[in-house]
């Protein structure tokens, strides 16, 4: 044997840390918390990929990005090649690089992650995407026009992904958005400090360059129903209207002034830029002590936003323990670092107001964890007689959202489940109505950006097949 043995790859056990603004500083501004990798760090991190044969990371990506290939290109410093590779599959890489819970997706399956920390796939993705946004975007190839017209209802992550894929296949796509700007939850829900709105709009602009038309100020179910859209010449419709119906606790005092749904609190701040009031006209009132009810990502966003708006104290009030918090670990950690306080195993029973109908306190009950329930989680049990008053002047209800009923209510022949979600096939996105597909939160209930994007991709593929069969 004359071959020299291949040098064994030097394993770097830890992910390159994400540079971030100092917690004390960032808790008072709306600039992005994580500032992003440098070119050198991105290359070094990409080089950590073992380029293993099995590529298990790929099964964790709902939009099917060829992760090892893009990491290889990035490892060689070919970021243009890397982003092109990502964009073969992912229309919103700058968004995904920031808000995907990679620890539950691609990075969960990373071979390196079995013994060490997984490759920081999301962080490298973000660097590639940001670099391209800075230096100029190369448009992906678009198939010749098919002559088919598709309407996409809702411009959130599901709708934008579906629109992008369909446009690349040569279909003429119009996206209908109810608000005055495209992006859905990426614009109204996720705060500026986690996902700068300029980044979202840059991605939306790229979509427009593919020929996608975006009609803002267009509430489907109101100016036109889905049936009317189809009568007016659309060959197929994708519904991705999200989970835009805020749930409340249904406890006394919830309609007092100073009680916001998380949707209202975040929409005022993010979409309407109330943090710049009075330069922007939309106000938001924030008290000295804010209680956010719930323990998910939206609750963390609201609690951290409250601090930035000037609250002296911002509390998460959650009825289970810290182990059950549904929010991403990273978000909880960030909240802790910034000074958010946690009242765990606690749930309010009523909200109390002053003479002007403004919140002044909340009666809470303490809980302890009982036996595991059907889901395997230990269910909280109220401790009798543990009522106490918590003085607060703002309450944000962040216990979840349901599907917005406008489209389901006005579309004939569309099957809806008990919770109001549209019934659609997981494999195809097909609904009970021919030519109408659906995906994202309106089907699954509130989930993640990347799950919605995956559903948008599946919807696009099925619509393409449907249109092909129509042609035949």
């Amino acid at each position, binding site marked *: 044997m004359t071959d020299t043995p291949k040098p064994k790859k030097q394993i770097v056990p830890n992910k390159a840390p994400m540079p971030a603004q100092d917690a004390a500083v960032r808790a008072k501004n709306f600039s992005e918390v994580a500032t992003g990798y440098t070119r050198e760090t991105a290359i070094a991190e990409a080089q950590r990929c073992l380029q293993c044969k099995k590529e298990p990371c790929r099964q964790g990506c709902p939009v099917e990005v060829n992760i090892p290939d893009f990491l290889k290109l990035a490892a060689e410093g070919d970021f243009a090649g890397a982003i092109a590779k990502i964009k073969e599959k992912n229309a919103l890489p700058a968004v995904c690089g920031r808000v995907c819970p990679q620890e539950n997706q691609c990075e969960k399956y990373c071979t390196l992650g079995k013994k060490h920390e997984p490759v920081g796939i999301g962080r490298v993705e973000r660097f590639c995407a940001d670099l391209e946004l800075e230096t100029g975007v190369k448009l992906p190839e678009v198939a010749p026009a098919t002559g088919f017209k598709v309407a996409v209802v809702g411009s959130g992550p599901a709708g934008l992904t579906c629109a992008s894929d369909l446009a690349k296949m040569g279909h003429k796509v119009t996206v209908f958005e*109810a608000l005055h700007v495209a992006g859905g939850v990426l614009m109204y829900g996720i705060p500026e400090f986690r996902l700068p709105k300029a980044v979202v709009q840059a991605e939306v602009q790229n979509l427009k360059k593919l020929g996608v038309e975006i009609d803002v100020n267009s509430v489907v179910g109101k*100016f036109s129903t889905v049936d009317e859209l189809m009568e007016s010449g659309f060959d197929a419709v994708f519904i991705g209207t999200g989970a835009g*119906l805020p749930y*409340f606790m249904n406890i006394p005092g919830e309609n007092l002034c100073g009680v916001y749904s998380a949707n209202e609190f975040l929409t005022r701040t993010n979409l*309407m830029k109330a943090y710049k009031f009075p330069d*922007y006209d939309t106000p938001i009132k924030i008290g000295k002590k804010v209680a956010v009810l719930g323990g998910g990502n939206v609750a963390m966003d609201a609690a951290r936003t409250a601090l930035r708006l000037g609250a002296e104290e911002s509390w998460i009030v959650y009825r289970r323990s810290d182990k059950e918090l549904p929010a991403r670990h990273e978000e909880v950690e960030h909240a802790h670092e910034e000074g958010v306080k946690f009242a765990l195993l606690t749930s309010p029973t009523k909200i109390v107001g002053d003479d002007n109908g403004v919140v002044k306190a909340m009666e809470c009950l303490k809980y302890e964890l009982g036996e595991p329930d059907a889901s395997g989680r230990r269910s909280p049990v109220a401790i009798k007689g543990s009522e106490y008053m918590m003085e607060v002047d703002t309450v944000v209800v962040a216990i979840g959202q349901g599907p917005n009923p*406008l489209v389901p209510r006005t579309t004939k022949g569309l099957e809806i489940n008990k919770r109001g979600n549209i019934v659609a096939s997981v494999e195809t996105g097909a609904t009970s109505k021919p030519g109408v597909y659906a995906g994202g939160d309106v089907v699954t209930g509130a989930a993640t950006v990347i799950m919605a994007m995956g559903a948008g991709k599946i919807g696009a593929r099925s619509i393409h097949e449907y249109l092909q069969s129509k042609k035949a």
Partner: protein
Amino acid sequence: MYKILRKEVFSPIIKLMDIEAPKVAKSCKAGQFIILRIDEEGERIPLTIADYDREKGIVTIVYQEVGKTTEQLGAMEAGQSIQDFVGPLGEPSHIENFGNVIVVGGGVGIAPVHPIARSLKEAGNNVIGIIGSRNKELMFWEDKMREACSELHVTTDDGSYVRKGFVTDVMKEIIEARGKENIGLVIAIGPQPMMRACCNVTKEYGLKTVVSLNALMVDGTGMCGCCRVSVEGQTKFVCVDGPEFDGHQVDWAELSKRGAYFREEEQRSKEKKHTCKCGCGGGK
């Protein structure tokens, strides 16, 4: 962008605008509203649709200058454009033949009540219209309302036009004269105290009364819940469940408190130096 095609000044604080908005004009019905945002920094405010022309693609709004946005809008002229104009939103009025219907418009509420009166008349109702304002200067659309109703009664709080008295005084007289059993429905639209007063009167007679609520809103599509109101002890969203509700079931005290929550900020916003580049000459 949505072009202002025509502006009519009814009084220094009440103005009309025809807006080029074909999509809204095509599908709107009596009782629905729109949300507009003047410019990039603007807030979203709801206004009930006062009239529409489906063929020409025009939606008419009438507003009273009460805050920063309505004042800024009031300073704009025909030919200029507003950035966002979305609708139709909310549920349309329930129109059927009720027989005799009393339709009350108070102040700027005369505008939204107009298309409802017209639709009711078209549906075969005998529409008894009552319109009232604080004084002669604030009265408008008497002619249009006369056309939309079967008969029209006009009143002013100070007696400076036609007669002195509140709309509730006129309404009481009519109910007494015609007999409560001969009235199928009452619809009252105007400032909250006026709608509440109308409901207090009709409650005595056991007459069902529909009101159109003006709550603070952000998105107007059921997403934020800012506009929530208690009706019959249940929380409703004015934007998607309304804007019309049974006035006898509305928790008026709660509605009024919620409406006042941002008053301080509204004042600050109004006092802010107007520095837009829209060519409106710096507002007021």
